[in-house]
């Protein structure tokens, strides 16, 4: 399993709610619309469960960009979207402290049939990552500065 890819490309983690982004991603599939393969979509019930520590660890492991596709006002969980926003906001602060570009983390409300917003988020994150580069380069630069 310890093998390497020939062309390194940024890794995008998509945390997608079952009631929103994950179903939206399925819908994009049903429409046979293409997007980049550097995406890994993980289903979540509500991203309010993720602490700042989780996001930072993911960046440290080599995830270059994270899109939290939550359900926004469509969420079936009371207080879930608000808590998610709080955690993402806290994470931005921590990212700033650690020198991780905050553009690497994006919170977006995606509904079950939001095919265009889904594709827009993926494309924009790819454009951002092409512009700012790999997270591990960024972290290495921070290490040098210290």
């Amino acid at each position, binding site marked *: 399993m310890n093998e390497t890819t020939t062309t390194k490309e940024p890794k995008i983690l998509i945390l997608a709610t079952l009631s929103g982004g994950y179903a939206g*991603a*399925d819908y994009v599939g049903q429409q*046979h619309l*293409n997007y*980049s393969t550097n995406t890994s979509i993980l289903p979540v019930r*509500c991203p309010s*469960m*993720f602490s700042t520590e*989780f996001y930072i660890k993911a960046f440290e*492991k080599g995830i270059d960009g994270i899109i939290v596709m939550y359900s926004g006002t469509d969420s079936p969980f009371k207080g879930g979207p608000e808590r998610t926003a709080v955690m993402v906001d806290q994470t931005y602060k921590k990212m700033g402290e650690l020198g991780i570009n905050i553009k690497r983390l994006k919170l977006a409300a995606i509904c079950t049939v939001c095919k265009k917003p889904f594709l827009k988020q993926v494309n924009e994150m790819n454009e951002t990552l092409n512009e700012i580069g790999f997270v591990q380069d960024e972290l290495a630069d921070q290490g040098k500065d210290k």
Partner: protein
Amino acid sequence: MTEKTNPKPEETKIGVYVCYCGGNISDVVDVEKVAEKMREHPNVTIARTDMSMCSDAGQSIVENDIKELGLNRVVIGACAPSLHEHTFRGTVARGGLNPYFFHHVGLREQDSWVHSNNPGGATEKAIRLMYAGIAKANLLKPLDMIKLKAERHALVIGGGVAGLRAAYDIAGRGINVTLIEKTPFLGGRMAQLETVFPTGNNAREDLHSLINEVRTHPLITIHTLSELVNIRGYIGNYDVQIRSQSRGVSGDNAEAALAACTQEVPDDFNYGLTKRKVVYRAYEGCFPSTPAVDWEHYDGKPIEIDGQKVIFENKKKTFDLRIGAIVIATGFQPYEPPRGDYGYDELPEVVTLPQFIRHMGLRDGNVGELTWKGHPVRDIAAIHCVGSRHLAGVHEPQPDGILNNYCSRVCCTATLHQVNELLDEYPNINVYDFYEDIRTYGLEHESYYTEASKKMVRFLRFHGDQRPEVVAAPEGDTHPVLVKGKDYLTNGLEVEVPVDLVILAVGMVPRPVDDLVDMMKIPKGDDRFLLEVHPKLRPVETPVPGIVLAGTAQSPMNIQESCNAASAAAAKVAVLLAAGQVELDPYVANVDLDKCEGTGACIEVCEYEDAIVLETMTVEGKEVQRAVVTPANCSGCGNCVSACPHHAIDVQGWEVAHYEAMVDAITMEVEI
């Protein structure tokens, strides 16, 4: 069946299965390569591929492997989990494992179908996602479903034939039904028809027989002029709020009000061909028989009844219900061509098929000669696919930007059925049928075409990008309208047919139900109709558990198909509610008492009453406070998880550790 303990990692024996999905996955993803890579994983005992993992044969492979190889975890890469996660949990359980020792990886909707332009990348992604699935499977624990009381009460939204059929079938299984209808009268579109295919029966007679069954059923409560305005909860326990408008008139003054009312508006029952009063019945014999005030059009002025001036008041009321499941049967509306399309709304001799059917129904017993607006009708043109099968680049999208590119299916048979009935009554009329394709699908429906041919209907075939044109005939011509086009049955011969009447066979569009869609979080398809989970495998279910579809809210259907779909929806509701309880996934918060310090941080962020409380307990001889979860009150949102400073609380089946392990797998470099 439930294992008492979680096997230690070194004992983990995982079976991995990668589905071809009949080519849906394997046409893009190198499925054999994915399985080959899975075999390299130290925890994988066996990795197989199969043409169709969801088939009986595919599931048997998994069951046998669990028994023969002693597998204690299963990972399957296949279509979307929303389709077959439940199926495979059953497979795993039949093999003798706790059903939650299974993880489903979606390789179709989120890989092969979106990466058809990059098979290599799609294969690499499949490997990455499968490794992530294995990483999660390694950490899975046995869980038991939560059983909750389910309200044996269904809500049916829509009082057309599909809603009526669904309500009656559900009630027939001993389940209470509340049927709500937005308009004042039951019957929907079927009430506007005269005869129906394939039986040739009178539409309203068939409909009234069903309405009578429904209205006299002791388990069915009907609310007309009512709509859903709020919904909360989950399968088995939806709290819904219904808002009802008053009829405005009651038994005492209803007939007098109907007689005294003078304000008139176009009659929507007759598609605007006639006018009706704002105090009205949809038609004679409708149910309820009590007239109602048309609140949308009533001008608010007093009406003199028995010497007294009366102003009607719309006394709205709302009421709450606890509902176990919901059937959406909101129906369709006929496509309304834009002004000028085929001369519609510009030339008085151009009507839609629904209007023509109403015109036939409105005749006053005079069968000697068919007339239209006082003029005899000798020649008729019928034009198919109006508002259907539109082509990108040829036709303008609808005002909402959507192109009506679907086939409405029903119009061909409906048109020919109507033409045949017409010619039975008026054999001397000439009918010219302009069609793109004749699609009289269904058992013996082809006979409508052959019968029309025998009755000398002249068929002319056009191409989708060269549809016929309808223009006013020059003054002094023998007929008021000309239909011009190319007939591809005669090698594209230019034709010009003078007619007295043009019937547009319009397609179906769904009724606007965006308010329901927003409230219930159910998806719509590209054609705006409500979307089922899977057209073949779960044809009436929406992705929201306990909410099912019936009839033309879902897609164009004829009455037979609407009733079939409604009965299927009713059967689904009965299965859900018959036992009086539903089983929910056990995805609720769980406290690790060894880590809990009783800070109460979890309670501070929890929005659910009594889901978590602090209880006093004795630990190592000391009285301490510890968090305790009541599963029935917990939604499993995970707010508490990110709040706990000691990582002492998690959501069962969706633990942070699972995600961390999956991120590890995703970030691993993979070569194919």
